[in-house]
């Protein structure tokens, strides 16, 4: 089901001309909606509500159409995420190998539920339903990289590295 929650107010400013250019560059293919939204999210990290009319105009569709697509797909985020995105695989293969222990660990030690961001802004936790790494379950994904044969201790180490890295950066 589409996400039901209302988008949070997002005051992050962005350069409208640059976003228009990103949209224009991605809009040349047939059925360009997903490529355009991916491009905007790649550029801004999320898709602010102010972008919706820009996309609607560029693709010659209604704002409702854009909004509907945004809400339908799990990938598109309406608010800025943490500096790193961490997905824990919740699917059957990973469950069979103890994914739940990693979930529990995240909840108890990071105090994070899914779709939440740590207070230091280092990472946002998301669920994912299969990363295609089922022969090395359980799996998590950090940004563009998949990590297999995960366990709570390795997960903790991974998270600590992400948080330390952003503190020194």
């Amino acid at each position, binding site marked *: *089901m*589409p996400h039901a929650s209302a988008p949070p107010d997002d005051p992050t400013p962005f350069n409208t001309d640059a976003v228009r250019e990103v949209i224009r560059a991605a809009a040349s*293919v*047939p*059925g*360009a*909606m*997903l*490529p355009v*939204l*991916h491009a905007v999210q790649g550029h801004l990290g999320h898709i602010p509500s102010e972008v919706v009319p820009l996309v609607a105009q560029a*693709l010659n*569709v209604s704002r409702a*159409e854009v909004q*509907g*697509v945004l809400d*339908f*797909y*799990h*990938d*598109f985020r309406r608010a800025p995420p943490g500096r790193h995105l961490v997905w824990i695989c919740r*699917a*059957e*293969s*990973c*469950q*069979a*190998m103890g994914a739940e222990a990693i979930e529990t660990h995240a909840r108890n030690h990071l105090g994070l539920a899914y779709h939440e961001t740590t207070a230091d802004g280092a990472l946002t936790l998301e669920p*994912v*339903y*299969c*990363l*295609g*790494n*089922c*022969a*090395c*379950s359980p*799996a998590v*994904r950090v940004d*563009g*990289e*998949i*990590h*297999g*044969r995960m366990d709570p201790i390795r997960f903790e180490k991974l998270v600590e590295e992400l948080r330390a890295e952003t503190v020194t950066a």
Partner: protein
Amino acid sequence: MSARVFVPADSGALSVGAEQVARAILAEAEQRREPVTLVRNGSRGLYWLEPMVEVETRAGRIAYGPVRAEDVPDLFAAGFLSGHSHRLGHGLTDHIPYLAGQERLTFARVGLSEPLNLADYCEQGGFVGLRRALEMPPDALIREVTDSGLRGRGGAGFPTGVKWSTVGKAVAATKYVVCNADEGDSGTFSDRMLMEGDPYCLIEGMIIAARAVGAQEGYIYSRSEYPHAFAILASAIQRAREAGYLGPDILGTGQAFDLEVRLGAGAYICGEETSMLESLEGRRGLVRFKPPLPAISGLFGQPTVINNVMSLASVPVILAKGSAFYRDYGVGRSQGTLPFQLAGNIRHGGLVEKAFGLTLNELLYDYGGGSASGRPIRAVQVGGPLGAYLPESRFDVPLDYEAYSRIDAMIGHGGIVAFDDRVDMAKMARYAMEFCAIESCGKCTPCRIGSQRGVEIIDRIVAGRERSKNLILLDSLCDTMVNGSLCALGGMAPYPVRSALQHFPADFGIDTSGIAERERTETVPSRRI
């Protein structure tokens, strides 16, 4: 002489440290002044040995694994560059029983060399099928695929040649070939492995499909969960175009066909073919009513071939070696091979391509080596999150489409997820409904509302609240979902639920002795297909 060393760049191998191993090998080689040529191949599919390092010797490739970066100095000291023995050594890769026992037709090349190396691809038999296809009239080409017995490997098992024939006969200015690479089923990774490890094979299959039906444009709809596969496909398409395999005039034949890889956005339902078309057209992935079939009115309203990665990647070998060669594998109406994927709680997880007709017992124990935990395997889910859970008493049923449908199960995409005896099957049944609720596109009521109610009813059954009444209600709900849903998501989510209930009633708190047993058999009839 520089030794050739293979370290996979497959995302599964990378997920367990292949990059660190590759770097350690280069660093150690430099320090020891022993020159190596590092090849970043795809995975051979022996994932429990990943990162699996291979060294080329006169006798063949020798495998070592699983290798950690800290093992590398020791491997050098033992002389692994010359194939010498080591505690991580497994001898000749091709002689490892897991691999030696396989019948790799679709996966013949995966893991052998660098995925983007076009010269290697051609050297290993690539484009032989395409060259033959380009010399054949389209109807002969379709007949060849029909005669091979190839059926849709995405799960539905529809004869590929028949589908192609429908699109071929349709009259339209533009036709499309769309590859469904939205491999969302848990326990499946063969599409990913092939796209990452042998992308030209998929591209070749798509060009052949385009030639057969007269299509000019093609799309590969790939999941956003597969960033590596997406990047490799994009490069492969570019290189294939530069080499003249794609574009306005394929290999000087006058045939035009070009391809784009398109990224999904994290919606499981977009693996359903009509939902995928909606997504490709830039809309929410709402399932379409059928008819019209996509073969008649598909992408942008035009006749469209939609095939799974495995179906399309099986086409080149069929064309290269002939339909009879392919058809001779398999049993009954399940012809050819299927790349099975062993996942979950299994000691030797990985890819096993075999002809249809073998059993779960062979896969789980001969190949898989039993559970990873060492405990008994209690349940196995075959065919993804919408597939049935099977108990040990079904492990001897031959894996062919018809035999599986007779036991109310499906082979699907060939994903096999094992669970040991600690699994709570009521929890897995609940998860099946929960997953359906999360991923439902929302268009039809049985799926959208039914899955939510299913979660609640299972909760009441497990809590022991009016159990008999709720079991009847759950059964009725499952009937409604099976018969009333628009697509397989709502239509098949009851399969894991009913099979869990049928085979593992105790997990739901159902007393299986005496009167309760009678009640169970009365209220939980086997589902129908």
